[in-house]
């Protein structure tokens, strides 16, 4: 069956996106990407730290992937815009994950500032994928502002708590005509499968793979879970049963005809 994901007109072969943060060793990353079959891979930007030797992280990434720098560290739209522009200068391409976090306690994204950043960056030709709190109206504004996909959080970043925002994400999947990619919170392959069964277009996983005992094996497990979940979605699960309660016939009157 033909089932391809397209983002901003570009075909994406794997519905598992992976992040490259929190790995104990960059040397693991090529094997993780290979085992997971991921094609979209996120990276971040930081000021150079003169104290420690610098390594070129890009050399660990295979050439055929889609690089998606994020704007982590941005606390408002202006900072996110600035980071996105710098990222493009590195030759990473046009994709950018907008991540604006002004709340340092829960690390929840700021939807309002995110909308503002999308407006500017989409006009500059970026393929913008905003990380957001799953709110229908905010997602609509983001779509109008030119987002290429919407990336609602399943639960707060790094918590591995699973899809706590299920009902809200389900609404985005039904109402928004863009790929919905569940980002943040997915701690286990079963939760990735759950997101895919719900009809998410893809999931983005970082912490759960990077911090696993065996990241390469976990990456493979996530890859398979995402495929399984997608197939389940496509095969049309019976869904939740509406429990029938016996009551008097409602259409009996029609038999008189």
């Amino acid at each position, binding site marked *: 069956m033909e089932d391809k994901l397209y983002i901003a007109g570009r075909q994406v072969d794997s519905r598992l996106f992976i992040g490259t943060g929190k790995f104990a060793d960059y040397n693991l990353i090529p094997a993780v990407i290979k085992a997971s079959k991921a094609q979209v891979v996120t990276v971040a930007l930081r000021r150079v730290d003169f104290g420690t030797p610098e390594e070129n992280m890009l050399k660990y990434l295979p050439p055929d992937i889609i690089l998606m720098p994020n704007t982590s560290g941005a606390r408002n739209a202006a900072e996110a815009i600035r980071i996105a522009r710098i990222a493009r200068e590195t030759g990473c391409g046009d994709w950018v994950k907008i991540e604006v976090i002004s709340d340092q306690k829960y690390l929840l994204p700021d939807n309002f500032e995110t909308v503002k950043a999308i407006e500017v960056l989409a006009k500059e030709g970026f393929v913008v994928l905003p990380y957001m709190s799953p709110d229908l109206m905010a997602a609509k504004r983001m779509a109008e502002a030119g987002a290429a996909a919407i990336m609602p959080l399943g639960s707060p970043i790094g918590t591995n708590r699973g899809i706590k925002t299920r009902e809200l994400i389900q609404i985005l999947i039904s109402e928004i005509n863009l790929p919905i990619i569940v980002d943040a919170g997915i701690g286990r392959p079963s939760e990735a499968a759950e997101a895919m069964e719900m009809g998410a277009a893809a999931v983005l996983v970082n912490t759960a793979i990077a911090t696993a005992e065996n990241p390469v094996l976990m990456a493979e497990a996530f890859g398979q879970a995402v495929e399984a979940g997608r197939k389940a979605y496509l095969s049309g699960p019976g869904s939740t*049963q*509406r429990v029938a309660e016996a009551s008097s016939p*409602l259409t009996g*009157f029609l038999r008189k005809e």
Partner: protein
Amino acid sequence: MTFYDEIIGLQNTDYSDAFELVTASQIANILAKAELQPQDFLALLSPQAAFSLEEMAQAGHRLTLQHFGRTIMLYTPLYLSNYCVNHCVYCGFNATNDIPRRKLTLAEVELEAKAIAATGLQHLLILTGESRQQSPVSYIKDCVAVLRKYFSSISIEIYPLSTEEYAELIATGVDGLTIYQEVYDAKIYSHLHPKGPKRDYRFRLEAPERAGQAGMRVINIGALLGLGEWRSEVFLAGMHLAYLQKQFPEIEISISFPRMRPQFGNYQPEFPVSDRDLVQSILALRLFLPRVGITISTRESSELRDNLIRLGVTKMSAGSSTAIGGHTDAPDSIGQFEISDKRSVEEMRQTIATLGYKPVLKDWHDLNLGGEVDNAKVSIS
């Protein structure tokens, strides 16, 4: 992108083939689902689904209770004018029909308003034929200015307007729009509308969207059942609703199921719709879109209407007259179509209550305009 772009694709489908392929197990699966997709809705309109009508009824009944409670909103139509320049083959007000033409003066509008308000109704639907000359937007505005003293909600069912015109009427106090595409099948549409501005299928189809952009609070659409093959017509009307609901999440969206009745001019519906078909249409729609309002007018008999109350209907007209001045002085003037359920508002209220539902006469009060509603003149339930 408007719904017009979407319907072009939808009209290319061969629906009779799609309906043939539906199986009993498919229907059983659909009835177990929490949320239906368009193809599920289509399947529920198939002949196969008719075998599961009772199961559909149970599910539809539950969903309606869940989202609307035991309530039925009541409204009544007020015909302002029967001047019409269109040649809709099926309509008694059609320009070629030799009937007495009339439009209410503002004084008459006020009399009608008083008579209707005395019944306790607070939601009014005003109607005209299509004549920009006889009943221009300015005339509608004048009427609304009078009517809003008596009613908390005023809907219009008139010729399609531009976005700016809708905005003007909203500013005057209109909060609802009813406009039926009549028939979604573009070929039949063109055949049934041989002359007049209504020939413009697209301008009519996009009217609800224009009203939505103008800020209309309630939008009610529908297909006139009998003009086209009902299964595909109801499907397309449902897709239109789904489109509007998605496009305008802030708007209260609803659908009517008007069925062709005999009227002056003797048009006989080419695709008759039985009671059973009507019930299947209503239920399929309810299961597909659990939150939309469903309206049934007095075109239908009192027995059928009473039964439909438990099958997904949420709004009903009551105490209706389709003739100009029909609420006061003109019992013998010719109406647009014949009323079947002739019960008074009071009788309707009692019947609805007996069935275990609450008749709702008012569910909206605009605070911006509200100061002008003279509550002393009306009895509110």
